[in-house]
């Protein structure tokens, strides 16, 4: 057909047929597409493998934090030593020398130990928390006085590392923190069935401690809880109200444009800046207490507000104008239209934005540094003004501790934090899927 054309009208320049052009470089274009797909796949594979490596590393290091080694002591509570007059007065019982009881118990188990240095090594088999544990037990159960019973006390963090197999027994004695005689004692105790590892409840029920075997995340968890409550109570209503006003009521003029641009800018401001602001305003000017979840919550409110306002406005925008027009058309006032018709439809989107903002706030450390929440706090906070830290700060503090056993505690705390973040994001996805309406 082409040939016909060319013979019939030789003056018309020969134009290549489209199909020829298509066929000519089809291989090249297909190859380009395949290459592009390959780049995409490689990118995804890399991203997944990084996440996988991260999770594998954290779980591998952190799984040990959830178990703890315990050593059994057969304690005889001599009435003469604890409560000589038999009064069972809690003050008298609390004053007894439990430290000494634990130590003499260890000496009795290994009577061959004589030198001062050896004794120190022996005492450091069990945690320094053992005597407090014994004291608490006797206070609660005075009937144990005068009896012998078996008490499982946590092993010292170095011994715990040995039992869990993190310490290489083959390297020279001088190069390890665990001495040969300590290994021999632990092996002997193990043969006697006096060593066990079990789920570490302390990790979830105690505050921070400088002894890794006594350290827990409850203090940081309740700090995070109080901080996020303040953040949620403040940022959700303020954010939603601001979004509703800007989206539904505010006139479109220069001023609202400026406000809008600034809200978008604020969302990208580094969080440490909010910390500095919090220090200047809440602590120095309003004289609120340092290290308190109240101030932390206020600072994080400043940080999450832009996120919530932006997502709430997007949710309001996605409600079709027909709904508004129908409501107005039926005689609803503007406020009735917004609160009875638009808001309920936009709420799932707003909640999703809020949860994501909260998850962001949960993982934040930098702004809290400035307001004194990066601190060593043992007592579990019980109010909005008690000094406290939050989970990511606890991770930061443990990562900086010299004792080896805190490595696994750090990863363990990261696992808990990740679990919370994943749960919160899953709830956000669930709300979006379940409640969001498509128009």
């Amino acid at each position, binding site marked *: 057909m082409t040939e016909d054309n060319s013979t019939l009208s030789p003056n018309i320049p020969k134009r290549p047929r489209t199909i020829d052009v298509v066929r000519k470089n089809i291989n090249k274009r297909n190859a380009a597409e395949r290459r592009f797909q390959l780049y995409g796949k490689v990118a995804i594979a890399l991203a997944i493998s990084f996440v996988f490596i991260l999770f594998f590393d954290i779980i591998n290091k952190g799984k040990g934090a959830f178990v703890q080694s315990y050593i059994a002591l057969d304690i005889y509570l001599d009435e003469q030593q604890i409560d000589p007059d038999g009064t069972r007065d809690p003050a008298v019982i609390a004053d007894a020398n439990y430290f000494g009881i634990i130590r003499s118990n260890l000496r009795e188990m290994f009577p061959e130990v004589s030198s001062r240095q050896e004794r120190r090594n022996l005492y450091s088999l069990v945690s320094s928390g053992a005597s407090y544990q014994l004291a608490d037990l006797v206070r609660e159960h005075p009937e144990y006085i005068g009896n012998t019973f078996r008490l499982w006390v946590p092993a010292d963090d170095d011994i715990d590392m040995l039992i869990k197999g993190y310490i290489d027994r083959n390297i020279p004695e001088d190069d390890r923190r665990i001495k040969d005689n300590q290994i021999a004692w632990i092996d002997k105790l193990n043969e006697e069935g006096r060593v066990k590892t079990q789920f570490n409840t302390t990790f979830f029920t105690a505050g921070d401690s400088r002894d890794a075997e006594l350290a827990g995340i409850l203090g940081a968890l309740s700090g995070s809880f109080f901080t996020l409550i303040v953040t949620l109570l403040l940022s959700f209503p303020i954010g939603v109200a601001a979004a509703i006003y800007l989206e539904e009521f505010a006139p479109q003029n220069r001023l609202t444009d400026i406000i809008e641009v600034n809200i978008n800018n604020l969302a990208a401001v580094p969080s440490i800046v909010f910390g500095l602001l919090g220090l200047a305003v809440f602590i120095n000017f309003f004289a609120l207490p340092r290290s308190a979840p109240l101030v932390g919550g206020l600072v994080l409110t400043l940080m999450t507000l832009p996120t919530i306002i932006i997502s709430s406005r997007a949710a309001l925008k996605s409600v079709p104008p027909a709904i508004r027009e129908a409501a107005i058309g039926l005689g609803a006032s503007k406020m009735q239209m917004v609160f009875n018709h638009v808001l309920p439809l936009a709420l799932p989107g707003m909640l999703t934005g809020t949860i994501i903002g909260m998850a962001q706030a949960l993982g934040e450390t930098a702004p809290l540094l400035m307001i004194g929440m990066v*601190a060593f706090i043992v007592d579990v906070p019980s109010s*909005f003004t008690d000094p406290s830290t939050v989970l990511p700060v606890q991770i930061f503090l443990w990562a900086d501790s010299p004792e*080896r056993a805190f490595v696994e505690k750090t990863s363990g705390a990261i696992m808990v934090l990740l679990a919370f973040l994943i749960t919160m994001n899953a709830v956000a996805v669930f709300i979006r899927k379940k409640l969001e309406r498509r128009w």
Partner: protein
Amino acid sequence: MNKLITSMAATALLTAATVGQAASRDYVSIVGSSTVYPFATVVAERFGKSTSFKTPKIESTGSGGGLKLFCAGVGVEHPDITNASRRIKQTELDQCVENGVKEIIEVKVGYDGIAFANSKKSAQLEVELKDIFLALAKEVPDPKGGEKLVANPYTTWNEVNPNLPNTKIEVLGPPPTSGTRDAFVELGMEGGCNQIDWIKALAKDKHRTVCHSIREDGAYVEAGENDNLIVQKLEANPNAYGIFGYSFLDQNSDKVHGAKVGGVEPEFDAIANGEYPVSRSLYFYIKKAHVGTIPGIQEYAKEFVSENASGEEGYLSDRGLIPAPSEEHQSYQKAVNGLEPMPSKI
């Protein structure tokens, strides 16, 4: 809508209620050095468990940051005690007095050695302070001779001193905000610097710039305040050296070893008796005006200086604190018991 208003009202109430509470404080608030932090926290925890007082709150702000907060004034919103890995400076003391913090009790708790360590996979280094200075200073005397300073030309250790190994100079250390860095510069760098006579004879200002400037061409890597990170990096890179406190060397003795400085190993006894050249004192400072107002300050300080804690066989020595000689220790015990303030001029 109603819910919204109630939750806002609840928050307002809550804020109002807590502002009232801020007027008093029933726990000791401590700030300061990240080097003293691991020791102070142990004391605080034991103190909280064994007494009826609340456990003190300890923030790790660095020595300088701590003193700044400490000297900001008297009142519950200001800290009661600050830890320092160096002595308070006259300027800081003046600042304190200016802000009404007139009586300060100085307590030395012990010593800390600064280790210059590398991985156990490579050989232990034996250096002199002068080698450290030549390897790390920004400007060094011209290797060709003469009293002239040139930008540090050394890239390997054996260029500095033929007895040292032929490896690249790569040192991981803390950033300038750290007290460890201050002490390393003052004791290590300056000590080495003063072994070169003509530099020692320089005018004070010039001497300071020469001795205190660390090279910025990549041989000295600022590895952040996290000493654990430095230990991990040394393990990964056997040719690198790291600068950190003795307690980290002690805890990681299976992974890293400290260089002999001036022929002395960084060991407990050598640091305690001052033979090891790079060791410094650790202090804490008590605000006398707060004693009696905030419960537990003096009791906490007593616990810290007790024989059981910072004494020779105390539990802090297990954590890597080098105790002060017993005479010195007793003098600080006396200062705490009698609440004897330090002089306002040092």
